[in-house]
Protein backbone atom coordinates (compact mmCIF):
# COMPACT_ATOMS: atom_id res chain seq x y z
CA UNK A 1 0.00 0.00 0.00
CA UNK A 2 1.11 3.48 -0.73
CA UNK A 3 1.87 5.92 1.97
CA UNK A 4 -1.00 8.33 2.04
CA UNK A 5 -1.47 11.16 4.41
CA UNK A 6 -4.92 10.43 5.80
CA UNK A 7 -4.94 13.17 8.41
CA UNK A 8 -8.43 14.62 8.39
CA UNK A 9 -8.59 17.95 6.62
CA UNK A 10 -10.32 20.38 8.90
CA UNK A 11 -12.46 23.20 7.72
CA UNK A 12 -13.80 26.07 9.62
CA UNK A 13 -16.86 24.92 11.49
CA UNK A 14 -16.49 21.28 10.44
CA UNK A 15 -14.69 19.13 12.93
CA UNK A 16 -13.29 15.77 11.93
CA UNK A 17 -15.50 13.00 13.21
CA UNK A 18 -19.08 11.90 12.86
CA UNK A 19 -20.78 13.32 9.81
CA UNK A 20 -17.73 15.34 8.80
CA UNK A 21 -18.12 14.40 5.15
CA UNK A 22 -21.89 14.70 5.19
CA UNK A 23 -21.49 18.28 6.36
CA UNK A 24 -18.81 18.91 3.75
CA UNK A 25 -21.17 17.70 1.01
CA UNK A 26 -23.88 20.06 2.24
CA UNK A 27 -21.37 22.90 1.96
CA UNK A 28 -20.33 21.83 -1.51
CA UNK A 29 -24.01 22.08 -2.43
CA UNK A 30 -23.73 25.79 -1.62
CA UNK A 31 -20.65 26.20 -3.80
CA UNK A 32 -17.98 25.98 -1.06
CA UNK A 33 -14.67 25.17 -2.79
CA UNK A 34 -12.74 24.66 0.46
CA UNK A 35 -15.21 21.94 1.41
CA UNK A 36 -14.84 20.48 -2.08
CA UNK A 37 -11.04 20.43 -1.76
CA UNK A 38 -11.30 18.65 1.58
CA UNK A 39 -13.66 16.04 0.09
CA UNK A 40 -11.29 15.64 -2.85
CA UNK A 41 -8.28 15.11 -0.59
CA UNK A 42 -10.14 12.40 1.33
CA UNK A 43 -12.21 10.64 -1.32
CA UNK A 44 -10.07 11.22 -4.43
CA UNK A 45 -7.43 8.60 -3.50
CA UNK A 46 -10.14 6.18 -2.29
CA UNK A 47 -12.02 6.51 -5.59
CA UNK A 48 -8.81 5.94 -7.52
CA UNK A 49 -8.11 2.84 -5.42
CA UNK A 50 -11.60 1.55 -6.20
CA UNK A 51 -11.09 2.03 -9.96
CA UNK A 52 -7.68 0.41 -9.99
CA UNK A 53 -9.07 -2.76 -8.42
CA UNK A 54 -12.04 -2.96 -10.79
CA UNK A 55 -12.08 -5.88 -13.21
CA UNK A 56 -14.70 -4.75 -15.70
CA UNK A 57 -13.30 -2.81 -17.29
CA UNK A 58 -9.66 -3.00 -16.26
CA UNK A 59 -8.61 0.59 -15.68
CA UNK A 60 -5.15 2.09 -16.10
CA UNK A 61 -3.63 4.60 -13.71
CA UNK A 62 -4.15 7.48 -16.13
CA UNK A 63 -7.78 6.58 -16.84
CA UNK A 64 -8.37 6.11 -13.11
CA UNK A 65 -7.28 9.71 -12.53
CA UNK A 66 -9.51 10.96 -15.33
CA UNK A 67 -12.37 9.10 -13.70
CA UNK A 68 -11.57 10.59 -10.29
CA UNK A 69 -11.94 14.01 -11.89
CA UNK A 70 -15.18 12.95 -13.56
CA UNK A 71 -16.60 11.61 -10.28
CA UNK A 72 -15.58 14.67 -8.28
CA UNK A 73 -17.01 16.99 -10.92
CA UNK A 74 -20.31 15.10 -10.63
CA UNK A 75 -20.09 15.45 -6.85
CA UNK A 76 -19.76 19.20 -7.37
CA UNK A 77 -22.64 19.37 -9.83
CA UNK A 78 -25.00 17.04 -8.00
CA UNK A 79 -24.26 17.94 -4.38
CA UNK A 80 -27.52 19.88 -4.21
CA UNK A 81 -29.42 16.60 -4.66
CA UNK A 82 -27.58 15.00 -1.74
CA UNK A 83 -29.88 14.32 1.18
CA UNK A 84 -28.12 13.75 4.47
CA UNK A 85 -31.17 11.89 5.77
CA UNK A 86 -30.99 9.34 2.97
CA UNK A 87 -27.35 8.38 2.69
CA UNK A 88 -23.94 8.69 4.19
CA UNK A 89 -21.44 10.65 2.10
CA UNK A 90 -19.42 7.50 1.35
CA UNK A 91 -22.53 5.67 0.10
CA UNK A 92 -23.54 8.55 -2.14
CA UNK A 93 -20.06 9.01 -3.58
CA UNK A 94 -19.74 5.25 -4.08
CA UNK A 95 -22.90 5.19 -6.22
CA UNK A 96 -21.57 8.05 -8.38
CA UNK A 97 -18.20 6.32 -8.82
CA UNK A 98 -19.90 3.00 -9.56
CA UNK A 99 -22.01 4.62 -12.28
CA UNK A 100 -18.96 6.26 -13.86
CA UNK A 101 -17.30 2.84 -14.03
CA UNK A 102 -20.42 1.28 -15.61
CA UNK A 103 -20.53 4.16 -18.10
CA UNK A 104 -16.94 3.56 -19.10
CA UNK A 105 -17.64 -0.15 -19.52
CA UNK A 106 -20.60 0.45 -21.82
CA UNK A 107 -18.93 3.27 -23.71
CA UNK A 108 -16.35 0.66 -24.70
CA UNK A 109 -18.96 -1.93 -25.66
CA UNK A 110 -21.92 -0.27 -27.17
CA UNK A 111 -22.06 0.95 -30.74
CA UNK A 112 -25.36 2.75 -30.82
CA UNK A 113 -26.37 5.40 -28.35
CA UNK A 114 -29.29 4.04 -26.37
CA UNK A 115 -32.18 6.27 -25.36
CA UNK A 116 -31.28 5.73 -21.73
CA UNK A 117 -28.16 6.42 -19.75
CA UNK A 118 -26.61 4.63 -16.81
CA UNK A 119 -28.23 6.89 -14.24
CA UNK A 120 -31.68 6.02 -15.54
CA UNK A 121 -30.94 2.40 -14.64
CA UNK A 122 -28.75 2.84 -11.58
CA UNK A 123 -30.29 5.64 -9.54
CA UNK A 124 -28.08 7.61 -7.20
CA UNK A 125 -30.40 8.43 -4.34
CA UNK A 126 -31.52 11.77 -5.57
CA UNK A 127 -35.08 11.32 -6.59
CA UNK A 128 -37.67 12.84 -4.35
CA UNK A 129 -40.33 10.45 -5.47
CA UNK A 130 -38.88 7.00 -4.88
CA UNK A 131 -41.10 4.60 -2.96
CA UNK A 132 -38.50 4.13 -0.23
CA UNK A 133 -39.16 7.50 1.37
CA UNK A 134 -41.30 6.04 4.11
CA UNK A 135 -38.71 3.45 5.04
CA UNK A 136 -35.90 5.93 4.81
CA UNK A 137 -37.50 8.26 7.26
CA UNK A 138 -37.48 5.45 9.79
CA UNK A 139 -33.85 4.72 9.40
CA UNK A 140 -30.96 6.44 11.06
CA UNK A 141 -27.36 6.94 10.01
CA UNK A 142 -25.85 3.54 10.23
CA UNK A 143 -22.45 2.02 9.84
CA UNK A 144 -22.14 -1.51 8.60
CA UNK A 145 -22.34 -3.15 11.96
CA UNK A 146 -20.29 -6.22 11.46
CA UNK A 147 -16.77 -6.17 10.17
CA UNK A 148 -15.86 -8.01 7.01
CA UNK A 149 -12.65 -9.15 8.64
CA UNK A 150 -14.66 -11.18 11.15
CA UNK A 151 -16.32 -13.28 8.46
CA UNK A 152 -15.12 -16.80 7.68
CA UNK A 153 -12.39 -16.60 5.04
CA UNK A 154 -14.47 -18.09 2.21
CA UNK A 155 -17.29 -15.58 2.78
CA UNK A 156 -14.82 -12.69 3.00
CA UNK A 157 -13.29 -13.79 -0.25
CA UNK A 158 -16.62 -13.81 -2.11
CA UNK A 159 -17.78 -10.47 -0.69
CA UNK A 160 -14.47 -8.81 -1.56
CA UNK A 161 -14.46 -10.13 -5.11
CA UNK A 162 -18.00 -8.87 -5.58
CA UNK A 163 -17.55 -5.41 -4.12
CA UNK A 164 -13.88 -4.64 -4.52
CA UNK A 165 -13.25 -6.26 -7.88
CA UNK A 166 -16.75 -5.50 -9.21
CA UNK A 167 -17.45 -9.06 -10.32
CA UNK A 168 -20.92 -10.56 -10.61
CA UNK A 169 -21.72 -13.58 -8.46
CA UNK A 170 -21.75 -15.66 -11.62
CA UNK A 171 -18.23 -14.54 -12.53
CA UNK A 172 -17.06 -15.26 -8.98
CA UNK A 173 -18.55 -18.77 -9.21
CA UNK A 174 -16.72 -19.40 -12.49
CA UNK A 175 -13.48 -17.99 -11.14
CA UNK A 176 -13.55 -20.13 -8.01
CA UNK A 177 -14.95 -23.19 -9.77
CA UNK A 178 -17.91 -23.28 -7.38
CA UNK A 179 -21.58 -24.00 -8.06
CA UNK A 180 -23.67 -20.82 -8.36
CA UNK A 181 -25.74 -21.90 -5.35
CA UNK A 182 -22.66 -22.07 -3.13
CA UNK A 183 -21.64 -18.52 -4.02
CA UNK A 184 -25.19 -17.28 -3.48
CA UNK A 185 -25.38 -18.85 -0.04
CA UNK A 186 -21.96 -17.47 0.95
CA UNK A 187 -23.16 -14.01 -0.03
CA UNK A 188 -26.37 -14.42 1.95
CA UNK A 189 -24.55 -15.71 5.03
CA UNK A 190 -22.03 -12.88 4.86
CA UNK A 191 -24.76 -10.27 4.52
CA UNK A 192 -26.63 -11.75 7.45
CA UNK A 193 -23.53 -11.57 9.62
CA UNK A 194 -22.84 -8.02 8.49
CA UNK A 195 -26.46 -7.22 9.32
CA UNK A 196 -27.26 -5.73 5.97
CA UNK A 197 -30.02 -8.20 5.16
CA UNK A 198 -33.43 -6.64 5.47
CA UNK A 199 -35.25 -9.97 5.60
CA UNK A 200 -33.63 -13.30 6.31
Amino acid at each position, binding site marked *: MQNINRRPVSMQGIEPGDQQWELALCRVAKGDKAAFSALFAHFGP*LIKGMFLRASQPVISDAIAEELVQEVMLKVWQ*KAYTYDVKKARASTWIFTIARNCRIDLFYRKQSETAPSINTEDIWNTLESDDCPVDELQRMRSQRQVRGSVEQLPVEQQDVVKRVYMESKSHQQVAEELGLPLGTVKSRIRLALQKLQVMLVN
Partner: protein
Amino acid sequence: MPNFHPDTALLVDYASGSAHRAQAICLSTHLSFCAQCAQQVRHLEELGGDLALTEPAALSSGLLDKTLATLDSAEPPTPRPTAQARQIEGRTDLLNGQSALPELVQKLITGIPAPAAWRKLSNSVSMARLPTGQKDYEVALQRICAGGKTPHHGHTGDEFTVVLQGSFSDEDGIYSAGDFLYRGPGEVHQPLGALHEDCICLTAVSARIKLRSWFDWLFAPLLRIKPM
Protein backbone atom coordinates in the same frame (compact mmCIF):
# COMPACT_ATOMS: atom_id res chain seq x y z
CA MET B 1 -46.39 -4.63 -3.08
CA PRO B 2 -44.94 -7.34 -5.33
CA ASN B 3 -44.83 -10.97 -4.13
CA PHE B 4 -42.00 -12.25 -6.30
CA HIS B 5 -38.55 -10.76 -5.85
CA PRO B 6 -35.05 -11.09 -7.30
CA ASP B 7 -32.69 -13.17 -5.17
CA THR B 8 -30.18 -11.40 -2.95
CA ALA B 9 -27.18 -12.21 -5.14
CA LEU B 10 -28.80 -10.36 -8.05
CA LEU B 11 -29.49 -7.34 -5.86
CA VAL B 12 -25.83 -7.43 -4.80
CA ASP B 13 -24.77 -7.48 -8.48
CA TYR B 14 -26.99 -4.47 -9.08
CA ALA B 15 -25.67 -2.54 -6.06
CA SER B 16 -22.03 -3.30 -6.82
CA GLY B 17 -22.58 -2.38 -10.45
CA SER B 18 -21.66 -5.74 -11.96
CA ALA B 19 -25.15 -6.76 -13.11
CA HIS B 20 -25.51 -6.90 -16.86
CA ARG B 21 -27.22 -3.82 -18.25
CA ALA B 22 -30.26 -5.81 -19.38
CA GLN B 23 -30.57 -7.48 -15.96
CA ALA B 24 -30.17 -4.10 -14.30
CA ILE B 25 -33.01 -2.68 -16.41
CA CYS B 26 -35.31 -5.43 -15.09
CA LEU B 27 -34.01 -5.05 -11.53
CA SER B 28 -34.40 -1.28 -11.59
CA THR B 29 -37.95 -1.65 -12.89
CA HIS B 30 -38.77 -4.06 -10.06
CA LEU B 31 -37.28 -1.60 -7.54
CA SER B 32 -39.64 1.12 -8.69
CA PHE B 33 -42.51 -1.16 -7.61
CA CYS B 34 -40.91 -2.66 -4.51
CA ALA B 35 -39.97 -0.48 -1.53
CA GLN B 36 -38.53 -3.47 0.31
CA CYS B 37 -36.02 -4.46 -2.36
CA ALA B 38 -35.20 -0.79 -2.99
CA GLN B 39 -34.34 -0.43 0.69
CA GLN B 40 -32.28 -3.64 0.57
CA VAL B 41 -30.32 -2.16 -2.34
CA ARG B 42 -29.63 0.99 -0.29
CA HIS B 43 -28.11 -1.19 2.42
CA LEU B 44 -26.05 -3.05 -0.15
CA GLU B 45 -24.82 0.24 -1.58
CA GLU B 46 -23.88 1.35 1.90
CA LEU B 47 -21.80 -1.79 2.21
CA GLY B 48 -20.35 -0.97 -1.21
CA GLY B 49 -19.19 2.42 0.03
CA ASP B 50 -17.66 0.82 3.12
CA LEU B 51 -15.82 -1.88 1.18
CA ALA B 52 -14.91 -0.32 -2.15
CA LEU B 53 -13.75 3.03 -0.77
CA THR B 54 -11.17 1.67 1.65
CA GLU B 55 -7.81 1.36 -0.05
CA PRO B 56 -6.42 4.68 -1.26
CA ALA B 57 -4.10 5.08 -4.24
CA ALA B 58 -1.95 8.21 -4.39
CA LEU B 59 -3.12 10.86 -6.83
CA SER B 60 -0.62 12.68 -9.00
CA SER B 61 0.08 16.13 -7.68
CA GLY B 62 -1.92 18.86 -9.29
CA LEU B 63 -5.01 16.71 -9.88
CA LEU B 64 -7.01 18.73 -7.37
CA ASP B 65 -5.98 22.02 -8.99
CA LYS B 66 -6.83 20.64 -12.42
CA THR B 67 -10.25 19.62 -11.15
CA LEU B 68 -10.84 22.92 -9.36
CA ALA B 69 -10.09 24.72 -12.61
CA THR B 70 -12.92 22.85 -14.35
CA LEU B 71 -15.55 23.61 -11.72
CA ASP B 72 -16.38 27.11 -12.87
CA SER B 73 -16.74 26.16 -16.49
CA ALA B 74 -18.83 23.14 -15.59
CA GLU B 75 -22.49 23.35 -16.35
CA PRO B 76 -24.36 24.73 -13.37
CA PRO B 77 -26.48 22.14 -11.64
CA THR B 78 -30.06 22.26 -12.78
CA PRO B 79 -32.79 20.95 -10.54
CA ARG B 80 -34.30 17.73 -11.73
CA PRO B 81 -37.86 18.18 -12.94
CA THR B 82 -40.54 16.71 -10.73
CA ALA B 83 -41.97 13.28 -11.47
CA GLN B 84 -45.05 14.77 -13.05
CA ALA B 85 -43.08 17.00 -15.39
CA ARG B 86 -40.99 13.99 -16.30
CA GLN B 87 -43.94 12.04 -17.73
CA ILE B 88 -42.83 11.25 -21.19
CA GLU B 89 -45.00 12.14 -24.08
CA GLY B 90 -45.72 10.03 -27.09
CA ARG B 91 -45.57 6.31 -27.75
CA THR B 92 -48.58 5.83 -25.49
CA ASP B 93 -50.06 4.05 -28.50
CA LEU B 94 -48.11 1.06 -27.26
CA LEU B 95 -49.89 0.84 -23.97
CA ASN B 96 -53.55 1.59 -24.56
CA GLY B 97 -53.26 4.61 -22.28
CA GLN B 98 -53.20 2.45 -19.20
CA SER B 99 -51.76 3.24 -15.79
CA ALA B 100 -48.44 5.03 -15.48
CA LEU B 101 -45.29 3.02 -16.12
CA PRO B 102 -41.95 3.34 -14.35
CA GLU B 103 -39.90 6.23 -15.68
CA LEU B 104 -37.19 3.92 -16.99
CA VAL B 105 -39.69 1.93 -19.07
CA GLN B 106 -41.17 5.13 -20.44
CA LYS B 107 -37.72 6.24 -21.53
CA LEU B 108 -37.02 2.88 -23.14
CA ILE B 109 -40.26 3.17 -25.07
CA THR B 110 -39.24 6.53 -26.53
CA GLY B 111 -36.26 4.72 -28.05
CA ILE B 112 -38.43 2.49 -30.22
CA PRO B 113 -38.00 3.63 -33.78
CA ALA B 114 -41.38 4.76 -35.04
CA PRO B 115 -43.60 3.35 -36.40
CA ALA B 116 -42.51 -0.04 -35.06
CA ALA B 117 -44.85 -1.12 -32.34
CA TRP B 118 -46.44 -4.39 -31.32
CA ARG B 119 -45.52 -7.30 -33.50
CA LYS B 120 -47.73 -10.37 -33.22
CA LEU B 121 -45.94 -13.54 -32.17
CA SER B 122 -49.12 -15.58 -31.95
CA ASN B 123 -52.83 -14.98 -31.53
CA SER B 124 -52.31 -14.08 -27.92
CA VAL B 125 -48.79 -12.69 -27.64
CA SER B 126 -47.28 -9.55 -29.14
CA MET B 127 -43.92 -8.02 -28.59
CA ALA B 128 -42.21 -4.64 -28.97
CA ARG B 129 -38.42 -4.68 -28.86
CA LEU B 130 -36.67 -1.99 -26.86
CA PRO B 131 -33.27 -0.58 -27.84
CA THR B 132 -30.91 -0.75 -24.86
CA GLY B 133 -27.44 -0.45 -26.38
CA GLN B 134 -26.25 -3.99 -25.65
CA LYS B 135 -26.22 -7.23 -27.60
CA ASP B 136 -26.44 -10.07 -25.10
CA TYR B 137 -30.11 -9.86 -24.23
CA GLU B 138 -33.20 -9.07 -26.17
CA VAL B 139 -35.12 -6.57 -24.07
CA ALA B 140 -38.77 -6.17 -25.01
CA LEU B 141 -42.28 -5.45 -23.90
CA GLN B 142 -44.50 -8.49 -24.23
CA ARG B 143 -48.24 -8.38 -24.18
CA ILE B 144 -50.34 -11.43 -23.42
CA CYS B 145 -53.94 -10.67 -24.30
CA ALA B 146 -56.73 -11.44 -21.84
CA GLY B 147 -57.18 -15.20 -21.61
CA GLY B 148 -54.21 -15.73 -23.93
CA LYS B 149 -51.98 -18.78 -23.91
CA THR B 150 -48.30 -18.63 -24.78
CA PRO B 151 -46.37 -21.53 -26.27
CA HIS B 152 -45.03 -24.05 -23.78
CA HIS B 153 -41.35 -23.20 -23.85
CA GLY B 154 -38.04 -23.98 -22.25
CA HIS B 155 -34.91 -21.88 -22.08
CA THR B 156 -31.39 -22.33 -23.22
CA GLY B 157 -30.41 -19.07 -21.53
CA ASP B 158 -31.77 -16.64 -18.97
CA GLU B 159 -35.15 -14.99 -19.02
CA PHE B 160 -36.00 -12.11 -16.69
CA THR B 161 -39.56 -10.84 -16.53
CA VAL B 162 -41.15 -7.95 -14.65
CA VAL B 163 -44.92 -7.55 -14.81
CA LEU B 164 -45.84 -3.95 -15.63
CA GLN B 165 -49.62 -4.11 -15.97
CA GLY B 166 -52.26 -6.79 -15.51
CA SER B 167 -51.29 -10.30 -14.49
CA PHE B 168 -50.42 -13.73 -15.80
CA SER B 169 -49.91 -17.15 -14.30
CA ASP B 170 -47.91 -20.29 -14.88
CA GLU B 171 -47.42 -23.61 -13.14
CA ASP B 172 -45.81 -21.88 -10.14
CA GLY B 173 -48.02 -18.92 -9.38
CA ILE B 174 -49.92 -15.80 -10.33
CA TYR B 175 -47.83 -12.73 -11.11
CA SER B 176 -49.01 -9.15 -11.01
CA ALA B 177 -47.57 -5.64 -11.28
CA GLY B 178 -43.99 -5.41 -10.05
CA ASP B 179 -43.41 -9.15 -9.70
CA PHE B 180 -39.95 -10.26 -10.81
CA LEU B 181 -39.36 -13.68 -12.35
CA TYR B 182 -36.23 -15.44 -13.40
CA ARG B 183 -36.13 -18.59 -15.52
CA GLY B 184 -32.80 -20.25 -16.03
CA PRO B 185 -31.53 -22.69 -18.63
CA GLY B 186 -33.57 -25.89 -18.69
CA GLU B 187 -36.65 -24.49 -16.99
CA VAL B 188 -39.91 -24.97 -18.84
CA HIS B 189 -43.10 -23.00 -18.43
CA GLN B 190 -46.28 -21.89 -20.13
CA PRO B 191 -47.50 -18.43 -19.12
CA LEU B 192 -51.26 -17.81 -19.34
CA GLY B 193 -52.80 -14.34 -19.44
CA ALA B 194 -55.41 -13.35 -16.84
CA LEU B 195 -58.97 -13.67 -18.09
CA HIS B 196 -60.19 -10.12 -17.65
CA GLU B 197 -57.32 -7.93 -18.90
CA ASP B 198 -54.21 -7.80 -21.05
CA CYS B 199 -50.89 -8.33 -19.30
CA ILE B 200 -47.84 -6.28 -20.24
CA CYS B 201 -44.38 -7.40 -19.12
CA LEU B 202 -40.83 -6.20 -19.52
CA THR B 203 -38.60 -9.12 -20.51
CA ALA B 204 -34.91 -9.71 -21.07
CA VAL B 205 -34.00 -12.97 -22.79
CA SER B 206 -30.41 -14.05 -23.24
CA ALA B 207 -30.45 -16.92 -25.69
CA ARG B 208 -32.75 -18.65 -28.08
CA ILE B 209 -35.84 -20.13 -26.48
CA LYS B 210 -36.36 -23.87 -26.94
CA LEU B 211 -39.85 -24.91 -27.98
CA ARG B 212 -41.53 -28.08 -26.81
CA SER B 213 -43.82 -29.33 -29.56
CA TRP B 214 -43.89 -29.40 -33.35
CA PHE B 215 -46.73 -26.89 -33.21
CA ASP B 216 -44.60 -24.50 -31.20
CA TRP B 217 -41.97 -24.66 -33.90
CA LEU B 218 -44.34 -22.64 -36.03
CA PHE B 219 -43.51 -19.74 -33.77
CA ALA B 220 -39.83 -20.49 -33.66
CA PRO B 221 -38.67 -17.83 -36.15
CA LEU B 222 -40.52 -15.25 -34.11
CA LEU B 223 -38.98 -16.27 -30.84
CA ARG B 224 -35.38 -15.96 -31.90
CA ILE B 225 -33.82 -13.16 -30.00
CA LYS B 226 -32.77 -10.00 -31.76
CA PRO B 227 -31.18 -7.52 -29.40
CA MET B 228 -31.19 -3.92 -30.53
